[in-house]
């Protein structure tokens, strides 16, 4: 039940975009095509999960053991930066065609903000390993959902007559605001799972 609670909270109640405000830049900038949004979602999910796992390991295994919590920020960011690149190298080395296919379909993005954010949140919330992973994935699902809705809304807005001054980022923010309002309707749902 706890686990389901974590999922519901991360996806709906405290959606990473609409209530936690993480990963906003790519959310506003990149999500213009639905197909791309789907591919990006998968990539983000994997990267968030993997880096949460590794930073969790570092936090519990090293930092807390040696009383070095104050190095959290610096180690996490270094590890994450290295990890993301390493995955790319490995894929490229192992199967260049696979790597190429990814390159053709996915835009290059770096969502450091959300990755580091989730890694730190997991530690702050005092989650255990399973909870951390579940939280990371659910957050990513929440993010993917936001990206997906948003890319489709943008495709539609591109075909309608939004006033000049509102075009682009302003209307995107406004839409996100209204969606955030709608998502507030879910508040309290997590209590069922306690």
């Amino acid at each position, binding site marked *: 039940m706890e686990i389901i609670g974590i999922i519901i909270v991360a996806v709906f109640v*405290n959606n990473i975009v609409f*209530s*936690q*405000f993480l990963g906003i830049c790519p959310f506003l900038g990149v999500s213009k095509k639905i197909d791309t949004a789907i591919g990006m979602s998968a990539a983000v999910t994997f990267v968030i999960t993997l880096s949460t796992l590794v930073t969790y390991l570092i936090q519990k295994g090293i930092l807390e053991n040696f009383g070095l919590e*104050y*190095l959290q920020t*610096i180690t996490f960011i270094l590890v994450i930066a290295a990890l993301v690149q390493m995955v790319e190298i490995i894929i490229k080395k192992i199967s260049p065609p696979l790597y190429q296919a990814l390159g053709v379909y996915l835009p290059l993005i770096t969502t450091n903000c959300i990755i580091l954010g989730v890694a*730190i*949140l997991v530690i*702050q*919330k*005092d989650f255990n390993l399973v909870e951390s992973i579940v939280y990371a994935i659910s957050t990513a699902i929440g993010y993917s959902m936001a990206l997906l809705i948003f890319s489709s809304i943008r495709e539609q807005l591109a075909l309608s007559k939004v006033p000049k001054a509102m075009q682009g980022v302003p209307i995107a923010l406004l839409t996100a605001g209204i969606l955030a309002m709608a998502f507030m309707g879910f*508040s*309290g749902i*997590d*209590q069922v799972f*306690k």
Partner: protein
Amino acid sequence: MAKLKSTFKNMFLSLFTICFVVAVLLAQVNKITAKPIAEAKAKKLENAIREVVPPFDNNPVAEAYKIPDGAGDSLTIYPAKKGDEWVGFAVTSYSNNAFGGTIQIIVGFDKDNRIVNYSVLSHAETPGLGAKVVQWFKDTSKPGQCIIGRDLSKEKLSVSKDGGNVDAITASTITSRAFLEAVNKAYAAYVNTIAGNAASGATELSKDIVPEETTKNEKDIASDTTINKNDKTTGGEEHAQ
């Protein structure tokens, strides 16, 4: 000075030097700030206790002990003494049924089971709504909503909407309900341990509690006391409001 070339040696040295300097620097800053940080934390709790119980001269934090809350978790009790005399108890309690999840409070009772004061340690309620809980129930000018001075052995607290005796925060019945739940829990748990010794299993509150009786089991419970880490920054949700 010309730019260093990207040879492996240069790179390694340069990066290592930077890391070295940074590590030393951070360790020094940490050393300087570690104490204030710990103090800030400790102070927060101590201030809260001081706020909710009559003046004392012991160290309640050191004498704290835990008792089960009946729901698988435990509440911490901080006894306040003046000299050897017991003047009140501060109890940290919580409820998971608040609007934004968990709300953690500390409530102080005096010898006569009256609420001296309370303080909200952490919450994630809506600013302007549920967040009013921090002050709402302290307003002595409004007896309907004020809980200070109420004798819990006489009445259990509940919101008037549920037929109870406390006026809820406007449009925040949920928060109010959760808050009162936490207060009741604090009182019940504390009385329970006392009564638990007297009449086994009895949950009814006995009116004449003798403080001395508690001192017995105070020791063994206090022995495994660690201050729970519920004052940890909640991060995400909290600032997200």
